[in-house]
């Protein structure tokens, strides 16, 4: 069964450094999302992306965050200057065309640890 692939599985970074998290969507999927899950807490929406544009973003997704699809396959989340509170699991999710509520499929996440 096709799956969403995320790399790296674990990223350790010094506070203030930039990180880029990568996601390879399921091949025919066109809607992309990033979520964050702080240890022991709920899955929180960050941003949705379609047709090379952000569709919606949450309050968490401030100017330190950006997303892009640089080469038509990967979908990336960049955090420009990381803070300690950015430590979390980051999940990419994708879904295909069709009914708007068509469910998302998730990758296994990148565990980001900020030191």
């Amino acid at each position, binding site marked *: 069964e096709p799956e*969403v692939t*995320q790399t790296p599985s674990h990223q350790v970074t010094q506070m203030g450094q930039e990180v880029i998290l990568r996601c390879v969507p399921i091949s025919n999927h066109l*809607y992309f*999302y990033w*979520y964050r899950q702080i240890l022991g*807490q*709920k*899955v*929180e*929406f960050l941003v*949705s992306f379609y047709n090379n544009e952000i*569709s*919606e973003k*949450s309050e968490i997704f401030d100017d330190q965050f950006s997303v892009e699809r640089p080469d038509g396959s990967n979908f990336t989340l960049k955090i420009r200057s990381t803070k300690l509170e950015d430590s979390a*699991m980051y*999940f990419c*999710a994708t*879904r295909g065309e069709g*009914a*708007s*509520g*068509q*469910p*998302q*499929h*998730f*990758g*296994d*996440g990148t*565990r980001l640890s900020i030191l």
Partner: protein
Amino acid sequence: QKEVEQDPGPLSVPEGAIVSLNCTYSNSAFQYFMWYRQYSRKGPELLMYTYSSGNKEDGRFTAQVDKSSKYISLFIRDSQPSDSATYLCAITTHTGNQFYFGTGTSLTVIP
């Protein structure tokens, strides 16, 4: 008010029990409803997806939606130890631009 509220649990049941997991939501604009299962340090895995009131069955799992009460449920029949995980409800509107997740219910099925 949160968009979706989920009974936090944790739940601990004996093998073979029927499990009921529940969420309520606040806005009638939400039209699509999902249940995900999440194992430790893994991404959420889609279990059930529905958009109409009523029941939808898939093997041992039944998703129930009551739009008039803004209430969704997941029932697990004949629960197995492998069902031990955190279960997340998720909802979205017709745009699908943002999905809202419940806080998750941790389930342990004891052999």
